């Protein structure tokens, strides 16, 4: 029945087009509304105020620092998760993914209860006269907590995809595991690792709930762009929108740049299906 199957094919295509169109409109409309709300001239004026620039600088510094920490701490974890089958691996995987689904405010309370003055780790730090809440370090830690799952998920998937025979070949050539990782495994998985780092950076840049809970809100010290947007909403809608547009452009540029740099974008949680051929 070719006619019938052709008709079905047409309905299928129409259905897909409608669904995609609806989704694009739904995602695009709020973003477009932000961009057109404030005229460009006003936008610049609002962005070039000392308060906005301080929030921007703090956001850039903290998100870069937290991403570096995510990579330094997350890469070994991803390596273990991808290459070593061991008991309880599933549990560990869930554990490192948990911050992704946790409401950020809950993450912030957890951080306060752990690293706050009365917290388990915080008390020990207190003996050395150290206190983390309300500092820029607290901002970085909050970002680290909520963004590391994005990196670990992507890097683990990427490392797991590398054909095991490469590692075997390296081993027969007497490369020690560290050498094999640096020279063979990591270069092959690099696109996923970089994509994961970028996702985690973007998540850190947008971090709000855990930050305001754990680090508080003080301009210049702990008030990042998202916090400035939120506080701005209560007094000055226009500068809040201007800062939102800035956040939007920053994230969009970095994520797009990454997609263009690696011709075959790999979306971590879709795994191979979205990765396509190399």
């Amino acid at each position, binding site marked *: 029945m070719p006619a019938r199957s052709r008709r079905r094919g047409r309905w299928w295509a129409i259905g897909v087009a409608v669904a995609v169109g609806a989704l694009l409109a739904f995602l695009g409309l709020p973003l477009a509304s932000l961009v057109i709300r404030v005229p460009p001239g006003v936008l610049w004026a609002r962005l070039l105020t000392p308060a906005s620039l301080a929030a921007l600088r703090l956001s850039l510094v903290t998100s870069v620092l937290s991403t570096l920490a995510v990579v330094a701490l997350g890469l070994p974890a991803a390596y273990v998760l991808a290459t070593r089958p061991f008991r309880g691996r599933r549990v560990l995987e869930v554990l490192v993914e948990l911050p992704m689904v946790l409401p950020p405010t809950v993450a912030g309370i957890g951080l306060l209860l752990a690293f*706050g003055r*009365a917290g388990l780790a915080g008390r020990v730090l207190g003996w050395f006269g150290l206190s983390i809440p309300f500092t820029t370090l607290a901002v970085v830690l909050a970002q680290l907590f909520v963004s590391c799952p994005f990196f670990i998920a992507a890097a683990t998937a990427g490392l797991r995809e590398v054909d095991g025979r490469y590692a075997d070949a390296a081993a027969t050539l007497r490369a020690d595991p560290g050498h094999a990782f640096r020279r063979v495994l990591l270069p092959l998985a690099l696109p996923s690792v970089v994509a994961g780092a970028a996702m985690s950076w973007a998540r850190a840049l947008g971090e709000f709930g855990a930050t*305001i809970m754990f680090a*508080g*809100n*003080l301009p210049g010290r*702990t008030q990042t762009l998202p916090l400035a947007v939120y*506080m701005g909403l209560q*007094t000055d809608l226009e500068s809040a929108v201007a800062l939102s547009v800035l956040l939007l452009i920053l994230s969009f540029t970095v994520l797009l740049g990454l997609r263009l740099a690696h011709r075959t974008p790999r979306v971590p949680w879709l795994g191979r299906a979205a990765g396509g051929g190399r």
Partner: protein
Amino acid sequence: MRARRLASVASLLLAAALPAGGRADGPRPGPPRTLTVFAAASLTRAFGQLADSLRQRMPGLVVTFNFAGSQQLALQIEQGAAADAFASADARWMAEIEAHGLVDGAPRIFAHNRLVVVTPAAAPIARLADLARPGLKLVLAADAVPVGRYARQALASLGRMAGFPADFGPRALANVVSEEENVKAVLAKVQLGEADAGIVYVSDVTPEAARDVRRLDIPDAANVVADYPVAVLRGAREPEAARAFVALLLSASGRGVLRANGLVAPAGE
């Protein structure tokens, strides 16, 4: 086929649901009526109790609250949020709403509130003058939040009082480690012991909160009295219930509930 089966399931469900919903309301059928009140965060406890007594007077009424900083509520109302009444922690944000033509009738002052310094019960500070001690961690609400603005006024006034250094105000402000979005967030940071002191309303130090914090009273001469106006909003879906709520607030029993929650009822009402 499948559609017809779905339809029959739906009608079954509807048949099961209708009589229950229809009869529950007694003489007045129809969907339950919902009163939506936007109220300053400092009113959380008192309004919760008042809602109970309003429900007793108007059976079948559902009362929902949106508690947040007054400035945020004002913004939400300006942006078209569906609210029946607005209770603000200062006249400024009520005036803002009024200027937008969103108030039905004149706002009424239903309560006053005063400021108090709170400090963790586990490690309290001894005197108000300690607020200016270098290295102390002070948490205030942001300047846009009414209680944040009042707190800054109170610190400035303390600096003009005997027994306080002349630069008390600026030195205390230099100790601010966080500007919170509402008064409850200020209290939480002190309750958790992360801040050495915070400035909140007397009404925020509820019996539950009093377990974790100690109060340091601010002398009358430096204290700020916050006026709480309430108004029915234009375009309210339940104007009758909203007016009943305002009347309850101003009644003797309403004032009793407000007083029991640390608010000061206005004189001569």
